[in-house]
């Protein structure tokens, strides 16, 4: 069972706020603990903006011990795109966040999500006319949610 949550037109002044606000959706959904968003920011500070894994798309995450309570996936559309400092994939308008309670529990969900992204999920999330459609598009991609 995967917890899913979405937020639309989320404000963010910079990449830090974008990451914090996206991971916060997982906290609000009960899938991650309060410390998880800050941990997701540290991942980028320590390892670079590699989480921007495709054009305009970031995959926000941290290690399970940073507060993963359940397998969760959040999708956030920013009101204004932000720069992560990625050499090819900036600016970012769409963020997906995930969390997992242990290093293996998320593999099925993430694999399904990867398949869906290769099949155009990011564009379907971008094209969703409202929050309900955004949630429906994510739910369709993750049938066990």
């Amino acid at each position, binding site marked *: 069972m995967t917890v899913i949550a979405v937020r639309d037109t989320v404000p963010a002044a910079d990449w830090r706020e974008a990451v914090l606000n996206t991971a916060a959706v997982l906290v609000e959904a009960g899938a991650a603990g309060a410390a998880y968003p800050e941990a997701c920011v540290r991942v980028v500070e320590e*390892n670079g903006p590699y989480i921007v894994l495709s054009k305009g798309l970031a995959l926000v*995450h941290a290690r399970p011990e940073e507060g993963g309570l359940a397998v969760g996936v959040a999708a956030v559309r920013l009101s204004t795109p932000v720069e992560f400092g990625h050499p090819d994939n900036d600016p970012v308008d769409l963020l997906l966040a995930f969390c997992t309670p242990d290093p293996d529990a998320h*593999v099925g969900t993430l694999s399904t999500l990867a398949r869906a992204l*290769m099949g155009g999920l990011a564009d379907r999330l971008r094209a969703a006319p409202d929050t309900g459609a955004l949630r429906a598009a994510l739910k369709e991609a993750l049938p066990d949610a």
Partner: protein
Amino acid sequence: MDRPLEILAVCGVGMGSSLMLKMTAEDALRALGVEARVENTDISSARGMTPDVIIGQGMHTSEIEDLAPVVITVSDFLDKDGLEVQLRERLTEKGWLR
């Protein structure tokens, strides 16, 4: 090569982005008809491994250029076709693709 290629997808944490890259790589390798075992890990753990091929973003592959005979840099982890082109070229150079 008379055994499956060992391929390592790397990222910072070794759990999310590299898992997605692993899926993309498996699709590209299947399209090329290459027998391979693909694993994903974080950049620090990668330093202790001896794969045939490493795939990752430039900010990571630049740190581990000497770790494998073939190091491939990709900026889009979901671009199966782009990765397939790079794999075809680099594996052919090594004689690992017939």
